[in-house]
């Protein structure tokens, strides 16, 4: 279990890579070769995170070693406190490494001995049911004192459990692919070095965030990924829109950070500790005792989630953030950073579960925000012509889906969706980047079309990812989306009907708008100029890898019944088994719904109908005759069978148009004119009120009163000037007179 206890190495490597690239990149290494450093570092952490994931699975499979490991971990923490409490400096990274190696060589051996002995038994008894297993798999924490202040100790360390290693694998994998992809995509860029430096820094920050041991580290990592996002959105800072977008992203996130700071402080104030493990344990040990404080904390943290994960009403920055380079959009604004909010909810799930009463309610703030965001994002995706913006709204929508899932208590489904979504959304973004790379750096779909024949690799990977996103069997999205819908239907003690409706609608809409994108981009006639060409291998290989994950990603959490025919029931619900922190959640009484075939069919049906409807719509544009024929087949059972234009009318003017025109546009209008305007107005009015206060209060009242005092002195001086005759004797008269008067006063007083 060495990797789990020394997980701090994982963020350290890209951090070093960042420093090396930044300080030696241009001079020593050479601008054209800095990606080697970045890729090496990220490959290394990819391997390490796989090792960590493997060791975690071992740990879960053989829980008998938990007790031993737990003790050794505790010792470990203490050791650190003693050894490093005083002299932590720049070198504490090295010290860590050495110490760990020495301390744990022995424990390690012992653990293994036990593990192997009991392996078989556990694998049977533990996971036979496929779900609802009450496996207690304590997290591995190791930390040392970072700083202390007024009797409060702040620790720095790692908190490794299934959720952590899952995110580790996701971040490392996508980061690696994006690093490779970028060598071609941003080749020759003026700030190639800075680009790779920031990618490394982002990776480091994200990993640091993911394995934060305490909430202060969460805040630190949260802010650091934010600033990397700022730097990368504004990568081409010569153009004002890019810097505007970067500023908007950072400031919107900062608004959420108010909630983050306050929420975390409330948690600290309530539980008197910063440790995530301790907070979660405390809540799950006695749920409900701190309900009000948790409600406040959860509401505050929800604001942070809304800003970082693009939830209504703070989502507006995310589409603008597409001003950054496309690989960055894939890595940061689709797959990893924006899920930080979702991750935080999952990480501190007891807080939200208790705070929002997820277990007992049938609607709550988090579920509603998530569901509404999902619906709204999907609607907005119809109205966009910029391919990246469609994908951005799609991301907003899918993040809403995850938040909604967490809101209805479907923890595993949300994390599973996070996992699958990361791959297919990264694939879509990189695909869009590939398209733009081919078609003269435009993202406008009206200037694309017909690219299918020019760039088959891009086309097929894009289609696979689209199907995955739409939730078509057997692609990854189908399994995760299905679990979310199921979770919304079943809920905990009561179902979440509204969320179910939202979820279904979104499933339909997602399929529809993605089909639209595929149509405009790859089918029809090429509407741009020049000769589009397929991207080089260094770009298509990452696409195929991601597409592969989009294809098979669902296998990581297959429900039991599906596997039963193959006799592989033991492999069901792997994500749930490994990732779910049942040590916390079991105390809350979180339950898992039974797999439901009907629900899966409904979800699939919605997605398919979305695709079909859109497909028909665009096909009609291709040739009315074909559409008519098709209509006759497709709508054979309908009473308006003869009236071909009626369907046309229905699709075109009622369903599509109503989605496309009034709903999407009004949503867009609302987005642009109300929310965005509110943000802008808030900014402007803050500036105006700043100006006003500066002019009237600061310069007018406060400074004015100071100046008025000076002026008063001046005028009174003018008046007194007449006394200044310049004649000595007048002065003498005043002097002696005043002395006499003073003397009289003294005589009278004393």
């Amino acid at each position, binding site marked *: 279990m060495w990797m789990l206890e020394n997980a701090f190495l994982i963020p350290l490597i890209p951090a070093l890579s960042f420093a090396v690239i930044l300080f030696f990149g241009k001079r020593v290494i050479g601008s054209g070769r800095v990606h080697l450093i970045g890729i090496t570092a990220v490959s290394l952490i990819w391997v390490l995170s796989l090792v960590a994931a493997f060791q975690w699975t071992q740990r879960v499979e053989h829980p008998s070693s938990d007790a031993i490991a737990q003790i050794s971990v505790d010792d470990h923490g203490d050791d650190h406190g003693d050894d490093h409490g005083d002299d932590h400096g720049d070198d504490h990274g090295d010290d860590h490494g050495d110490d760990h190696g020495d301390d744990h060589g022995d424990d390690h051996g012992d653990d293994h001995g036990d593990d192997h002995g009991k392996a078989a038994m556990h694998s049977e008894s533990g996971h036979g049911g496929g779900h609802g297993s009450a496996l207690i798999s304590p997290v591995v924490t190791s930390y040392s004192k970072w700083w202390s202040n007024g009797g409060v100790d702040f620790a720095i360390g790692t908190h490794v459990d299934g959720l952590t290693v899952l995110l580790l694998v996701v971040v490392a994998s996508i980061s690696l692919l994006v690093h490779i992809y970028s060598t071609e995509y941003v080749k020759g860029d003026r700030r190639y070095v800075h680009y790779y430096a920031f990618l490394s820094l982002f990776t480091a920050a994200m990993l640091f965030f993911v394995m934060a041991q305490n909430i202060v580290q969460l805040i630190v990592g949260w*802010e650091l990924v934010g600033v990397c996002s700022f730097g990368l959105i504004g990568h081409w800072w010569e153009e004002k829109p890019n810097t505007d977008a970067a500023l908007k992203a*950072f400031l919107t996130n900062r608004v959420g950070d*108010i909630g983050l700071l*306050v929420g975390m402080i409330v948690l600290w104030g309530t539980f008197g500790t910063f440790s995530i493990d301790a907070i979660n344990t405390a809540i799950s040990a006695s749920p409900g005792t701190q309900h009000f404080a948790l409600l406040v904390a959860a509401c505050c943290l929800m604001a942070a989630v809304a800003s970082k994960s693009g939830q209504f009403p703070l989502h507006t920055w995310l589409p603008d953030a597409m001003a950054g380079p496309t690989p960055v959009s894939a890595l940061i604004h689709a797959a990893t950073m924006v899920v930080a909010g979702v991750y935080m909810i999952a990480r501190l799930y007891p807080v939200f579960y208790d705070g929002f009463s997820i277990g007992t309610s049938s609607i709550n703030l988090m579920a509603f925000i998530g569901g509404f965001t999902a619906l709204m994002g999907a609607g907005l995706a119809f109205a966009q012509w910029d391919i990246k913006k469609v994908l951005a709204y799609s991301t907003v929508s899918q993040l809403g889906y995850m938040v909604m899932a967490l809101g209805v208590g479907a923890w595993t489904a949300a994390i599973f969706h996070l996992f699958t979504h990361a791959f297919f959304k990264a694939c879509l973004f990189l695909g869009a980047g590939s398209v733009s790379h081919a078609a003269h750096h435009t993202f406008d779909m009206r200037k694309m079309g017909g690219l299918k024949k020019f760039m088959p690799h891009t086309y097929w990977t894009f289609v696979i990812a689209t199907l995955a996103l739409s939730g078509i069997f057997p692609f990854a999205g189908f399994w995760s989306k299905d679990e979310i819908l199921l979770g919304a239907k079943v809920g905990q003690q009561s179902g979440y009907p509204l969320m179910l409706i939202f979820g279904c609608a979104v499933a339909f809409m997602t399929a529809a708008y993605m089909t639209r994108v595929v149509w405009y981009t790859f089918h029809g006639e090429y509407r741009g100029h020049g000769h589009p060409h397929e991207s080089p291998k260094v770009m298509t290989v990452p696409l195929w890898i991601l597409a592969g994950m989009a294809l098979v990603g669902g296998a990581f959490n297959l429900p039991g019944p599906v596997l039963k025919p193959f006799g592989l029931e033991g492999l069901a619900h792997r994500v749930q088994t490994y990732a779910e922190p049942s040590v916390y959640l079991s105390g809350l009484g979180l339950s898992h719904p039974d797999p439901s075939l009907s629900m899966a069919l409904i979800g699939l049906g919605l997605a398919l109908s979305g695709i079909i409807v859109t497909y028909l719509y665009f096909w009609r544009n291709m040739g009315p005759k074909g559409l008519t024929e098709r209509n006759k087949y497709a709508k054979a059972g309908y009473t308006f069978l003869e009236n071909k234009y009626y369907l046309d009318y229905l699709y075109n003017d009622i369903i599509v148009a109503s989605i496309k025109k009034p709903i999407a546009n009004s949503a867009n209008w609302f987005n642009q004119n109300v929310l965005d305007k509110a943000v802008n107005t808030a900014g402007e009015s803050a500036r105006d009120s700043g100006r006003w206060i500066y002019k009237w209060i600061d310069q007018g009242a406060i400074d004015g009163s100071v100046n008025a005092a000076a002026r008063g002195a001046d005028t009174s001086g003018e008046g007194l000037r007449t006394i200044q005759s310049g004649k000595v004797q007048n002065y003498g008269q005043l002097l002696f007179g005043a002395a006499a008067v003073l003397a009289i006063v003294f005589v009278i007083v004393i």
Partner: protein
Amino acid sequence: MEATGFDAWVLTLAVFLPLVGALIMMVVPKAYELEVKLIGLGSSLAALAVGIYILFQFDYGSSSELQFVVDKGWIDIINSRYIIGLDGLSLPLLLLSLLVVPLCLVYSWNHVPSPGNPKAFFILLLILSTGMNGSFISQDMILFFVFFEIVLLPMYFLIGVWGGEERRYASLKFFLYTLFGSALMIISFLALFFLSKDAAGNPLQTFDMRLLTDAAGSGIVKTTQVWIFAGLFIGFGIKVPMFPFHTWLPDAHTQAPTVGSVILAAVLLKLGTYGFIRIAIPFLPEAAVAWAPWIGLLAVIGIIYGALGCLAQKDMKRLIAFSSVAHMGFVMLGIATLTDFGLNAAVFGMVAHGLITGMLFFVAGSIKERYHTLEISRLGGLLKSVPRMGWILGFATMASLGLPGLAGFWGEFPAILSAYNPGAGLSEELFRTYMVIAAIGTVLAAGYLLWLYQRTAFGEPTEEFADHAIPDVSRNEWIAWVPFLIGIVLFGVWPNLIFNLTDGVVSSITANVEAVVAGR
């Protein structure tokens, strides 16, 4: 307790070496310019060397005790003594002050602003250094007051002679404002002298801060305490500067020469907050509890107000000056909580603000030197024309808006955190409201700083400067800036460097406050 041998001399050396250097410079003829400068730099570096010696010699195990104490007769007739000593609270500030002056000398080596005369410029900086160093180690109120006032005069001349267009107005405003505060402060000192009583009820009649700290305002009725505190509050509050007393700051900063601004931001403002922690709160704990809600209120008003003020500025230097108001608001909020946590945060905030805002002023000064303007709308594309400076500005901006991992965050975040659980006798609801307001202030901080950065560094250079070849960061600038940059990162990554030092002192202060509150 008193130091012996060489240790008895180190603090005196650290304080007066620059003054000795200044005196030597005075007798060297102006024509020997290089020699004059070398003497100045040498003496300030010697003082810094003494500071580093102190750093190694300091007993970190008992950082709450005064060390290197010297207690000699001075003005016997008013029972004022030459008492100096150093504890964990003074050490970081003394070192900051010792560090900043030689860097400022290096920075202005070849760039003494108009009207030139490096000899006088250097001499004034060295005298300033003596005043600042002395203020941080004095343990006698009259001695403190003398050093506190020594600081004023060189600053007045620095602004008034080497300043910008409106220098006369600004320097006079600075001088009179601070003097007004000092007048109230000395009255409060005298009141403390006459009214303080020891535990047995005998009048103390002393200016010795150690004794007054032990007395903790015993023998003074609460109403009187509140009034005395008011005098100290205005005296120190002006220096900080707190919200309604801040108007001298933007003018002084805007008009001052670069190093003047740097020293003003890095050290001078800290005299006010240091005074609160060292003098006002421990001497009059009861009054401090009575005043704390108001201090907190003014602090959060300052945070929001300073930020809004920044949003309205057109001049870069003025914007940075206003940001000082906001940042010192966080420091004051930490102080107002009267918890050891908050006071620690305040000290950290002081050091962090000193480094970061000092850095920002350095960059602003260098921009002014190259572009001859600081009007934000005329600048732009710094990253393109002077990339290194643009990066440094970006770094300082990020540090200033409180990015974790850099020093600014550890001043802000613990200050906000401390407001959640204010000290004994303070209203939790009130301070939690302050906490939320302060958190909102961080957003505004990000707003104005990034807005500044966007307008100045991003984009293309404006047309009027597009064709000019503008030199990037020079060697002297690197020498002056690198310690600042290292400090910002170092304290950001390892905040315990400061928290460890100050913790002992402030916990004894707050323990005192709590004991007094509980006892009455």
